[in-house]
Every structure is written in structure tokens, then in C-alpha cells.
């Protein structure tokens, strides 16, 4: 290396060092702002849900700031979020979490999108003792590792479709049912599967097909041919949006008749946009639905939230946005109860959280998962090609009767 190059490198390192020490001085609270950090998938395969998450966060930040902000020790503060794009890559997410904490001096984190990325970030936040409220990592394994600084506003993955099995048993006069299931081999879907295994045991149901679909899932014809042959009472599929779309496509093309079809990641907007009324009667697990009767003073009801969200972003909020907004409400509540910016005080306040938001009741269990909110099931119902989600379970919020059994393909127009 020649002299000039050496000089150049020294110069650059000096500037970088200066910048690092400068940014660290921002720390947790900058003037009237409480700075939160989040690595989020703005590009890469999770980018659409990443954007839903970010929109949810931003919506809540705006609302809370507009309605007076967060009051700590008699002074009003506003929320501000530093975002980095993690490119849907767990390694990158962990690096960015480290950067947010070490370079940007962030002391409070919001979660990324998906269980996989949350899993990558949690060890980092844990190491630096940074409280993280996350809204999009439902995998059960997040809550069994003994993390002390991780709090999830959503119900864990194993609860996603348990309700569906209960519903099938109820329709069968309380007797156990025959279950066929196909799950993608990823952390989330396998957790959903564990939930079904528990539910089957509890209700005396029998699992007659238990397929594990490859991650690069694009064809489940073999599974569906088996389903046709053994005629189960309920077919359960989980493999993110791709799994839901593949299932609907092939079930309709192969004319597979099952009395009940339960899935994850299948809200009507996505399914019917692609498949029209072929997706009708599918049961979908969801963390939230706008028709639920929960309320809070920031967003009012779910319906009001949906309306405001639609006005701001131009589309109906998926549950990913709603739960992300709820994460900010939890933080605000915790800061005010802690009445301090001390991380451990905030963490202790988070442990004691017990509140209602428009998204649902929130109370954290020992592992950090939300234990106060049940999952809901909706059924896709269509008028022509216009389909919508109608809540059918649990009965407390059901707006519609559960349509059972699904009519045979030969009888569907």
C-alpha cells in the first residue's frame, strides 16, 4: 500500500470513529424523542409483510405522538423509530440489531417481521439487555428459551389452528375426528403442527395423513391425492401464503372434497384476489379481525383502526399491521408505568403489562408470549368473485355461522 492510500484509510477510520461516538451520544432518549430501533424486511422475500409491519408501527407512532405522546416523570416525550432494511435475511437482521444497539445507542427495540428473523435478533437484544416488544414472531420456540427481554403481543404459533380442531369435533357431536395435515418444514408451520397434535390428543382425534412439505413447496398434488383416497373430516394446511395459494389451486383443480379446510396465511384479500371464489369456505387462522369488540383510547375500535389505516395507506389492514401498532401501545404503557428510562425498570413494567388495545387484551406469560388473547378463525365467504373474511370462532365474536360441511365440488357453481 502506498503512502496516499494509507493516509486515506487513516482518514476514513478517523471519520468513522468520530461518527460512531457521535451517534452513540444519541442514546435512548434524544431531546423530546424516545428512540426505538427496528430491523425490518423492506426488500427480499418478506418485503410485503415487512411493509405491513412498518406501516403498523408508523401509524401507531403518529397517533401516540399526536395524542400527547408518552409522559415520563412529568415530561412529554414522542416516539421515533430508526429503521434498517434487513433484506429478509436473518444474519443481516442480527447484524443490524447489533448496530442499532451499539452504534445508534438504541435501548428499546421493536421486532422484525417473521419468526425466523425474530429468532435471529432475540439473542442480540438479550445479550445487551434491551427490551424488545415484537409483533410478528409467533414461533413457540421463541418463548421456551427463557428470554427475559422479549415480549410478544401475539398468540404463539401452536395456538393458530387448535380452534379449528375443536370446531370440527364440535360439529362431529363431540367425537374425535380424522385429521389430514400438511405442513411446510419451517419453524412456524411446524409449531402450528405441534398445536394440532396437542389438540388431536386432547379431543381423541386421529391423524391419518401427516405430510411435511418441502420449503420450496410448489406442488402438493401427492398429498391431495392421498386426502382424496382416505377422506378425512378435516384438512389442515400451513405453509405461509405460498402454501395457502398452492392448496387452493390444487384442491380446486383436483376436485378434492373435504368437509372442512383449515389454513394459515389465507385472508380473503390474498386468496380471492388470486383464486376468486375457489377459495370460498376455507377457514383461516388469524391474530386479529377488525370486527372484534376490543377497544382502546388511541385507535378506538378495530373498525375505526381499519378505517384510519385504509385512509392513510390505501388498503385494508392485515393483522400484521394491527399487531405491530399494538406493540407501540404496549411500549407507551410500560414507559409510563415505569416512569423511567431505565431499561430494567421498563422491562419490569413490561412484565406487569395487563391492558386492552383495539387489537386485543395483552398480558405476557413467563416466556414473553401474550396469554390474554385467543386466536380467531374466519371463513372466506363470497358473493360472486367478491370475497370477505367472516369471523366464525370463537363464538363470542362470531359474526357468521360456520358453514359446514363444505359443499362438494360437483355441487359448486
Amino acid at each position: 500500500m502506498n503512502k496516499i492510500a494509507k493516509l486515506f484509510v487513516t482518514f476514513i477510520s478517523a471519520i468513522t470513529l468520530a461518527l460512531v461516538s457521535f451517534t452513540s451520544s444519541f442514546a435512548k432518549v434524544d431531546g423530546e424523542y424516545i428512540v426505538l430501533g427496528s430491523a425490518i424486511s423492506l426488500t427480499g422475500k418478506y418485503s410485503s409483510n415487512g411493509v405491513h409491519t412498518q406501516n403498523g408501527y408508523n401509524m401507531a407512532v403518529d397517533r401516540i405522538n399526536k395524542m400527547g405522546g408518552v409522559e415520563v416523570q412529568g415530561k412529554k416525550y414522542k416516539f421515533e423509530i430508526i429503521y434498517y432494511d434487513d433484506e429478509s435475511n436473518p444474519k443481516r437482521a442480527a447484524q443490524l440489531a447489533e448496530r442499532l444497539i451499539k452504534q445508534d445507542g438504541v435501548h428499546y427495540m421493536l421486532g422484525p417481521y417473521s419468526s425466523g428473523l425474530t429468532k435471529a435478533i432475540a439473542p442480540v437484544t438479550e445479550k445487551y439487555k434491551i427490551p424488545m416488544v415484537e409483533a410478528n414472531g409467533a414461533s413457540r420456540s421463541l418463548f421456551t428459551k427463557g428470554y427475559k427481554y422479549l415480549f410478544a403481543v401475539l398468540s404463539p404459533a401452536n395456538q393458530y389452528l387448535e380452534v379449528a380442531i375443536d370446531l370440527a369435533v364440535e360439529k362431529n357431536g363431540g367425537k374425535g375426528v380424522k385429521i389430514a395435515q400438511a405442513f411446510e418444514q419451517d419453524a412456524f408451520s411446524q409449531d402450528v403442527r405441534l398445536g394440532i397434535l396437542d389438540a388431536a390428543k386432547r379431543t381423541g382425534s386421529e391423524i391419518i395423513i401427516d405430510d411435511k412439505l418441502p420449503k420450496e413447496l410448489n406442488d402438493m398434488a401427492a398429498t391431495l391425492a392421498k386426502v382424496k383416497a382416505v377422506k378425512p373430516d378435516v384438512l389442515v394446511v400451513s405453509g405461509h401464503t405460498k402454501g395457502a395459494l398452492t392448496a387452493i389451486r390444487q384442491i380446486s383443480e383436483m376436485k378434492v372434497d373435504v368437509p372442512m379446510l383449515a389454513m394459515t396465511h389465507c385472508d380473503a384479500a390474498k386468496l380471492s384476489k388470486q383464486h376468486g371464489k375457489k377459495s370460498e369456505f376455507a377457514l383461516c387462522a388469524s391474530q386479529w379481525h377488525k370486527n372484534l369488540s376490543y377497544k382502546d383510547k388511541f385507535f378506538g375500535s378495530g373498525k375505526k383502526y381499519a378505517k384510519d389505516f385504509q385512509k392513510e395507506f390505501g388498503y385494508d389492514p392485515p393483522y400484521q399491521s394491527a399487531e405491530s401498532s399494538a406493540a407501540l401501545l404496549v411500549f407507551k404503557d410500560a414507559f409510563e408505568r415505569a416512569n423511567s428510562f431505565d431499561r430494567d425498570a421498563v422491562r419490569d413494567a413490561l412484565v406487569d403489562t395487563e391492558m386492552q388495545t383495539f387489537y386485543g387484551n395483552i398480558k405476557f406469560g413467563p416466556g414473553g408470549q401474550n396469554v390474554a388473547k385467543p386466536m380467531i378463525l374466519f371463513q372466506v365467504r363470497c358473493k360472486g368473485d367478491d370475497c370477505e373474511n367472516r369471523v366464525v370462532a370463537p363464538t363470542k365474536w362470531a359474526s357468521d355461522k360456520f358453514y359446514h360441511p363444505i359443499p362438494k365440488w360437483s355441487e359448486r357453481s
Partner: protein
Amino acid sequence: MDFLIFKAPMLMVQASLDGILLGILFALIAYGMALQWGVMNIINIAQGDLVILGGYIAYTIYLWGIHPAWGVIISPIIMFFVGWGLYKLVINKVVDRDLFISILATFGIAIVFQQLMNFIFGADVVVAQSEYGTTMLFDNSVTLPNSKIFSAFISVLYAVALVIYMKKSRLGRAIRATAQNARAAKILGVDTEKVYAATFGINAALCGIAGALISITLTLHPYVGLPYTVRSFMIVIVAGLGNLPAVAVSGMGLGLFEEFADYILGTEFRIGAVFLLLVLILVYRRFKLSKKREYLK
């Protein structure tokens, strides 16, 4: 449970037909790969991403209200030029270099394509609807989506057309000459540069057709290209280069094998079984070669 297939003979018919129909589609992609691998000695990691891009072209015309089946004509035309451009931009710089460089270059292309598709078409999974309905056989116990039958038919049609083209046309003969010995072909007046560009274009066009067919039979997503690359790579390895009937047979064979592995070993071992088969075939080939004393150390 594992041996359900032997209890229900109709499942065997279903599995065979599913396997063959899907295998034909994969064979088409593999044929493109074998062609440009044979001619240019390039392993194209971006093969699957070209397929997906072709699929998105069909999906786009579907969004414009045109039936997605027209994609099998429009998509290869556009993809031919994409392939041609790609050759002029990147591939011509690596065509004479060693295999590793070409793998790196096409790997880079794959990443750029994935991000571009993600940027343009979004990260949501999409499908195009052909509304072709379903063929039901044996009293509804075997069902075949007509879209799959259509896709197999189109694949065969294009493959046959290409074989004839390669045999009869000037360019086809030039391509075959270049594949046999590029230097000799050059000396005899073949513009190898043009041949390479055309070969890469034809490969991309084949990917375009396959992509359009996938948009109506399976699902599209910017990041699902790699499995198609791997699958076609496997088919080519099993079949060998420059052996078109073998590519077709190996495509269908792998499709069949995969379906049956699903029933007998379980869905989770489906891909694993195919890879195991690949290893066995490679070991067997080496064994055969060493026996013939043709294997050079």
C-alpha cells in the same frame, strides 16, 4: 399409511400421471440448460430465475386481461431478447473462462434477477388462472388438471419443434457444429459469437415457455427460481449433454420417482430421495467409466 399407494391402485395411476406431466415440464427447462451447457460450457445458475421471469411475463399479460396461455408465445419472444442481451452484457465475458467463473457470474445474475422481480412484481405469491377445468378419469378417482395436460402438450410441441430446427436450419447446424468443436467451427466460417448469443437466447426462450406454463399450473414468487435450477441440473446430469431423448426420459423419470418416493417414503423425503438417486447415478457412472478404462486421472 406409508404404503397407501399399494392399497389403492388408482393412487398409482394418479401418481404416475402427475409425475410424468410435471416431469415433461421440467425436461423442457433441462433441455435449455443442456443446450447452452453443451454449446458454451456454462452452468447457468440463473436458469430457474429466467423461468420465473418468463412466468411473470405471462402473469403480466394475464393482468392486462389476456388469457395467460398466450404467454407461451409472447413470453419466449421477450425472453429470447432478454437472453441475447444477457449474453452481450455478461456471459460473453465468461464464456471461455473456467466453469467456476461462469457459475459465479450466473449466480450474480440470479441474485440481480430475484431482486429486480421482487422490486417490480412485489414479494407476494401470484398465480394466473387458465380456467381450463379438470379431466376426471375412472369415476372421478383420478383427476388431472387440464392446465397440466396443456403444459405437457406445449412442452412436447416446443421440444419437437426445436429438435427439427436444430437439425434442419442453418443456425441449428451452426450451433451443433460449435458444440462439437468451437475452434474448428470458427475456422470453417461459423460466427461463434453469434451462435453463443443465439444459444443463450434460445435457452432463455425455453425458460420463458416453461415459466408461462408454471404460472398457470403452479405458483410464482420472485425467490422460487433455485429449485428449478437444481431440478434441471439434476436432469441434465442424469441424461448427459447433447442427448435430447435422454433429457426427456430423465425428466419424466425423475418426476415419477419423486411422486412415488412421496407415497412410499413420505413427503419429507421426496427431495432427499431424488438427491440420493443423483448420487447413486454419479457413482455408477464413474464406476462404469473406470471399468472401460476411459477415465483419465
